[in-house]
């Protein structure tokens, strides 16, 4: 969605200014990818030929790998949807606030960035534990009789990641919400659109760019998150990143670890491709 705009202004932008960063990107992104591919596709037997796809395909064969893959996709999707549904109203509210409140609320929104993953995870462990605030609250409300497990499982991961990634969604949405010309809403109103109609027909389409950026960010960050799922998921709910860690640092099987890395890479490329396709169709009219 930003590609078109970047291309438009590229002509006046001196390429030399971008070279250092682009070079660094090449070295620090392309090189590890090549190393990853080399390692992951290394033949298992001495006689085998390069590339050998057995390890990568093996990720999908083994039960634990298959589960981790499914779990990773499932959790990432759930987190993205929650961030979208819960973040949109928050962004709308902040956009509508006066400048003083807006600053304060923004500070609250980006607060998760200011605490380390370990502290954040510890906080959630306390809150979501069997005798934590969450369970006590649910019991007090009469929704459950006995504490339920909210942490060291998928729920814990989802809660932790949602908390961590919500700011990305809110900030992406806020960026476009604040740029909406209020006259567009007035124009729609004067033409007979009720506030509900203005929201669905004017505000949502106008925030589509931010919505797409937000989902792209949240989904890819959810898929590649490590510390939060590692600390809140416990040992029994491996996702691709924690499985990769296990292979690399407990089994010291670098080939298997690299294979998972390749799977993650493929997933990422796949998602970005689908996302770009959807954006380019949805955003045709945005220029």
């Amino acid at each position, binding site marked *: 969605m930003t590609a078109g705009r970047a291309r438009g202004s590229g002509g006046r932008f001196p390429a030399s200014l971008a070279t250092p960063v682009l070079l660094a990107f090449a070295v620090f992104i392309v090189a590890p990818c090549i190393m990853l591919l080399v390692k992951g596709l290394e033949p298992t037997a001495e006689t085998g030929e390069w590339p050998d796809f057995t390890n990568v395909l093996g990720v999908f064969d083994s039960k634990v790998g298959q589960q981790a893959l499914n779990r990773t996709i499932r959790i990432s999707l759930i987190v993205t949807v929650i961030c979208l549904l819960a973040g949109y109203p928050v962004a709308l509210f902040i956009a509508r606030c006066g400048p003083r409140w807006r600053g304060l609320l923004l500070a609250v929104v980006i607060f998760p960035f200011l605490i380390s993953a370990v502290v954040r995870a510890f906080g959630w462990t306390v809150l979501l534990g069997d005798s934590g605030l969450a369970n006590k609250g649910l019991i007090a409300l009469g929704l459950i009789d006995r504490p339920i497990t909210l942490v060291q499982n998928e729920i814990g991961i989802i809660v932790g990641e949602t908390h961590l990634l919500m700011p990305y969604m809110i900030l992406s949405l806020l960026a476009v919400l604040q740029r909406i010309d209020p*006259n567009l809403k*007035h124009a*729609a*109103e*004067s*033409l*007979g659109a*009720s506030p509900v109609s203005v929201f669905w*027909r004017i505000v949502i389409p106008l925030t589509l760019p931010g919505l797409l950026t937000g989902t792209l960010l949240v989904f890819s960050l959810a898929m590649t998150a490590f510390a939060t799922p590692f600390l809140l998921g416990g040992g029994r709910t491996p996702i691709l990143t924690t499985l990769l860690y296990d292979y690399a640092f407990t089994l010291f099987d670098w080939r298997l670890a690299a294979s998972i890395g390749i799977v993650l890479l493929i997933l990422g490329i796949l998602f970005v491709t689908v996302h770009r396709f959807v954006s380019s169709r949805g955003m045709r*009219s945005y220029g």
Partner: protein
Amino acid sequence: MSDVEVSGVSKRYDDLWAVKRVSFTAPAGSFTSLLGPSGCGKTTTLRLIAGFAALDEGEVRIGGKPVDDLPPWRRNLGVVFQNYALFPFMTVFDNVAFGLRRRKVSRSETASRVAEAIDLVGLPDLAQRYPRQLSGGQQQRVALARALVVRPDVLLLDEPLSNLDAKLRAEMRFELKRIQRETGVTSIFVTHDQEEALTLSDQIVVMNLGTVAGAAPPKAIWEQPESAYVADFLGVENLFPGTVGDGAADDGTVAVSVDDGAAVLHVAADRPPDGTPDRAVVLGIRSEEIAVRRSDGADNASDGPNALDGTVREFTYIGSAVVYQVDCPGLPAPLIATAQEEFPVGARVRLHLPPGAIKLLRPDAPAEGPEDRQ
């Protein structure tokens, strides 16, 4: 068609009255202009009529019915914004059809009415384009079509021509006039351009610091502005405070002393304007009504009254004429006069101010100062 009555409307923002006790009536089918300098409350007045902002005092009636309890989407108005406010993600067709779809007009009727509206505003076949693919003038026409297609009771236009270049602006002025005549829609038009207001309107409402300074048809407001402020805004270049003397002379003029009697001008009026305290008035004359010729130095009595000798201080050539600044003894500021003839800086000239061309104007009440807006 409906008339619009704005009575005693006020709107306060934080620490100032954006609009204070504004009243005027736009008769059904008429074209009314709100004219005034930047920040005088024109847009705010329009927003109050449209219902985009809640008024603090007063009442707006459309077609005789108070609309203060009606939200904007129930007022059946058409609004054209200064920046057009076209929906960027919709085609021209969808932009124009927006209001009809909200009114649940059938698909076939929508298509024909959109085509009709696009035709009315003189837009070529661009229905499938997006707003960003249109020129400013075309966007302007789409905005007009979008507002008119719903057959609004009232059309509100906020400086719709100010984003266009001079040539296009002149062209769109005629277009607006034609469209308004063809549709007969009651129109309220905001502008800070006196020429636009004069050429388009049936009535001009001049605003100053959130209040109405005068309201009259263009001809009346041009020939006899209500007050010095209105005259100033309508391009009366020469304005001097003066005091009306006793009694009328035999020739039907009154003597008005300028600057405590340093100069005396004769004005063809039988009495000072209403509401002038202590006979304090403002004299006004347009530059083109002052005759300029070379001074021969002699005191020629046959020049009649109001012949003043002066020195050219500066001149500018404007194509159709030359505009002079002339220093005249006895006047507090140089006179602005236009002539065909060319005189160099420093030339001695004789100016003649015809008694019939001088207007006696009501000075502006000091209560209308900015501090009153707080």
